[in-house]
């Protein structure tokens, strides 16, 4: 019954690029086999469209107009003079420019004991067995289009290991920069393993120095070991022309503590995916994020959390502010298998529509097979509360300022959970910049 649809220009570009590039991409024959399988899946089904449930509100087939060629080498001079996305922090910056890790631009001085950092490309070329094993993902995740494209085209990334018990005091910041014209694509994968009882703060910034339609695809896998504590923050900051696909795959072991925050502040088309799993009991995790949209931007946050072990607690909080003709999507699924008794999960999503043409879609889903659980979700959507606005106005505060205060307060509930002060401040600074631009 289902006719094979005509291939879109993006699908044609994909089909042309992969066979031409597969052997020049880093990796042994084993790696090529993994890439082939991943690409084969996408090639068979084409890009997902609105009838594919996971992409219902983000029709990738319709929205992805092109699939530009792979990025060439970046101009180091421009990257050296670029202002950092997060100022004033003490983070160890590791630079990935145009899809390639650049040690010469990175801060590798005095690596803390227990912290090791090396290039994924090197590991793939060497056929590193541990790295190869880590490329294998659960079928459901591996088949996801953004993930499969990352697997097929990944050029580099970082393999970061924190040894058992090591407390890495300085945050590690992965700086992704796209540079140059015309538009190009990058696919980067990071493998982060945090050992038993270890600590790490991992920041990721994704930006572009040029206002062209770069497409970035960043996949970060984090293994949070038993009793480990990991704080992960991603700032997605590309210009409106860009397409940004990001995926976080997190496995949280027993008694571990994991927090992840996603700030969707850039790109005309952005999709942030999170696949997380509690793999051991008594662990805690927080999943939070903000989305700020204007113009015709489209941002999608899709979270799939498997509460796979007993007595784990999670909190999910996603807030979106939508202006202009923009559209925000939140799809969150929490699955609790029968053995995961004493699960405690609370998911909340809220959208603030600031204009007549704005749109918000939400699908907060619970899938529960264990009875002794406390699970809940909430979703709200609306404009700025008239009564709150009136109170502020009645005290002499101008409408624009009052709205800004209320928007900031709305987002603050999520932002204030960020522990790292420098990132918190950098984010507030960006939010204020967005509000100023709106007020102008």
């Amino acid at each position, binding site marked *: 019954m289902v006719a094979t649809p005509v291939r879109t220009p993006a699908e044609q570009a994909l089909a042309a690029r992969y066979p031409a590039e597969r052997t020049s991409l880093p990796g042994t024959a084993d790696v090529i086999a993994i890439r082939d399988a991943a690409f084969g899946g996408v090639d068979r089904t084409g890009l997902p469209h609105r009838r594919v449930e996971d992409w219902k509100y983000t029709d990738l087939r319709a929205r992805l107009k092109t699939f530009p060629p792979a990025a060439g080498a970046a101009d180091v001079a421009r990257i050296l003079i670029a202002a950092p996305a997060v100022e004033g922090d003490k983070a160890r910056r590791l630079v990935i420019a145009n899809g390639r890790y650049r040690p010469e631009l990175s801060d590798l001085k005095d690596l803390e004991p227990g912290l090791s950092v090396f290039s994924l490309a090197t590991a793939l070329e060497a056929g590193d067995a541990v790295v190869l094993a880590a490329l294998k993902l659960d079928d459901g995740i591996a088949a996801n289009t953004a993930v499969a494209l990352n697997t097929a085209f990944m050029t580099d990334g970082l393999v970061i290991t924190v040894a058992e018990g090591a407390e890495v005091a300085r945050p590690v910041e992965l700086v992704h920069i796209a540079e140059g014209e015309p538009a190009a694509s990058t696919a980067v994968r990071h493998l982060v393993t945090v050992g038993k009882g270890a600590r790490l703060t991992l920041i990721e910034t994704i930006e572009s120095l040029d206002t062209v339609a770069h497409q970035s695809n960043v996949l970060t896998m984090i293994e949070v070991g038993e009793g480990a504590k990991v704080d992960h923050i991603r700032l997605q900051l590309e210009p409106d022309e860009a397409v940004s696909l990001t995926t976080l795959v997190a496995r949280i072991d027993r008694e571990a503590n994991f927090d992840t925050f996603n700030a969707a502040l850039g790109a005309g088309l952005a999709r942030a995916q999170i696949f997380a799993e509690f793999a051991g009991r008594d662990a805690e995790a927080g999943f939070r994020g903000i989305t700020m949209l204007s113009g015709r931007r489209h941002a999608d946050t899709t979270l799939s959390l498997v509460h796979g072990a007993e007595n784990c607690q999670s909190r999910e909080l996603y807030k979106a502010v939508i202006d202009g003709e923009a559209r925000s999507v939140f799809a969150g699924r929490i699955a609790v298998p029968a053995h995961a008794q004493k699960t405690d999960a609370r998911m909340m999503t809220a959208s603030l529509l600031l204009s007549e043409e704005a749109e918000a879609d*939400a699908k*907060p889903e619970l899938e529960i*097979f264990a009875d002794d*659980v406390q699970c809940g979700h909430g979703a709200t*959507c609306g404009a700025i509360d008239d009564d709150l606005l009136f109170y502020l106005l009645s005290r002499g505060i101008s409408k624009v300022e009052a709205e800004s205060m209320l928007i900031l307060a709305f987002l603050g509930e999520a932002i204030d959970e960020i522990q790292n002060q420098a990132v918190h401040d950098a984010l507030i600074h960006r939010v204020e910049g967005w509000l100023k631009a709106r007020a102008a």
Partner: protein
Amino acid sequence: MAAVKETVDQVLSIDVDKYKYGFVSDIESDLAPKGLNEDIVRFISAKKDEPEWLTEWRLEALRRWQTMEEPTWARVDYPPIDFQDLHYYAAPKKTTGPKSLDEVDPALLDTYKKLGIPLKEQEILAGVEKGERPVAVDAVFDSVSVVTTFKAELAKHGVIFCPISEAVRTHPELVRKYLGSVVPITDNFYATLNSAVFSDGSFVYVPKGVRCPMELSTYFRINEKKTGQFERTLIIADEGAYVSYLEGCTAPSRDENQLHAAVVELIALDDAEIKYSTVQNWYPGDSEGKGGVFNFVTKRGDCRGKNAKISWTQVETGSAITWKYPSCILRGDNSRGEFYSIAISNGRQQVDSGTKMIHLGKNTSSKIISKGISAGRSSNTYRGLVSVGRKASGARNFTNCDSLLIGNKCGAHTVPYIESKNASAIVEHEATTSKISDDQLFYCLQRGLPQEEAIALIVNGFVKDVLQQLPMEFMVETQKLIGISLEGSVG
């Protein structure tokens, strides 16, 4: 904790085989040959002496259906249905159509009496003297309506209440104007199937400004083996009219699955209100999942006029599989839609049910209260959509979905879709999933209640907000039904 464990075991061990409406009536039937094709559709249409336009309408639906695929997106799992291995028409032989009660086969009257549905007006009126309110009933047995009570009384008020097959003959202009205007023949696999082969069902028209003087009710009964029941209900409340309607359903316990694919269309014009309540107690199959009704139903209301209101209340305790989303299209400005639901699943039952609230007009409001209870090895999914269109300024929605799990072999799922395209709309959704509170249970036990009674009591408390929406006569019945559904012995 021990108390909870015991209770859970007890509930698990209870057979759903205690379905009390599982008897078969020995009534001779007029059956269409098995299978579905143009000849069968013409056969049904001819049996009902239908006008040409309706036969054509059915055939168009059939042709469309033959190109469609069964939907697979719901969280239900069942063996493939052989649509050619079913009878699409079954009617008690001695009835050619409902005339007067005296002509109805006494065995049929007995069947309804056993189900607790008196059809003799004298008996009902005897009840009135004892303070009960009269309810007009349309009794549908397999594919035909066997009797409709209080028709004369209703006619005095201008209210038309009759089998739809009769309405096709007596009020063709109304049927032709509204049939398929809410659920078009192309709507979905089961609705299209229904359009091709629908047998009987109720037709209600309440004229301008009339408040229907009594509750209307249809009682559906599947009796014959290997049959599908495809009833079609059409209710129209003209400007300023009000009607409250109740639907009840049962079926015998049979080893094979019975298919029920109904379509209900409601139309509320300016300032009209329709309240539609369902107590669905089709045979759920036995504890091993053998037999039971497949209930694939399309119910939709259209608030076509300004200030119109449509309210759905459903109590779903039966069926092996329930696939059902009573919805409201809020087209008229200031129109209101409500959905109150209790869905209880036990044994191997699978429920995928919810609602759609489509806000199109200005200042439209909707409210969704859904209470799901899963026990045994059942699966219970709430699936709902709240959509606010670009022009629906000032729209409001409030949704509350709570799920209760009894035992850890069952599943409770919540799949809401929220789509807002209007900044002045406010949409609020909240959902929780939990088990029966240990503290509440302990409190009841301490006061001397047996465990199963305590559970029934707590569950009744959990669903109270919805129970209160039911007409008084059915509230008590429903409370009992909840006990039976969960435990088989309580009540």
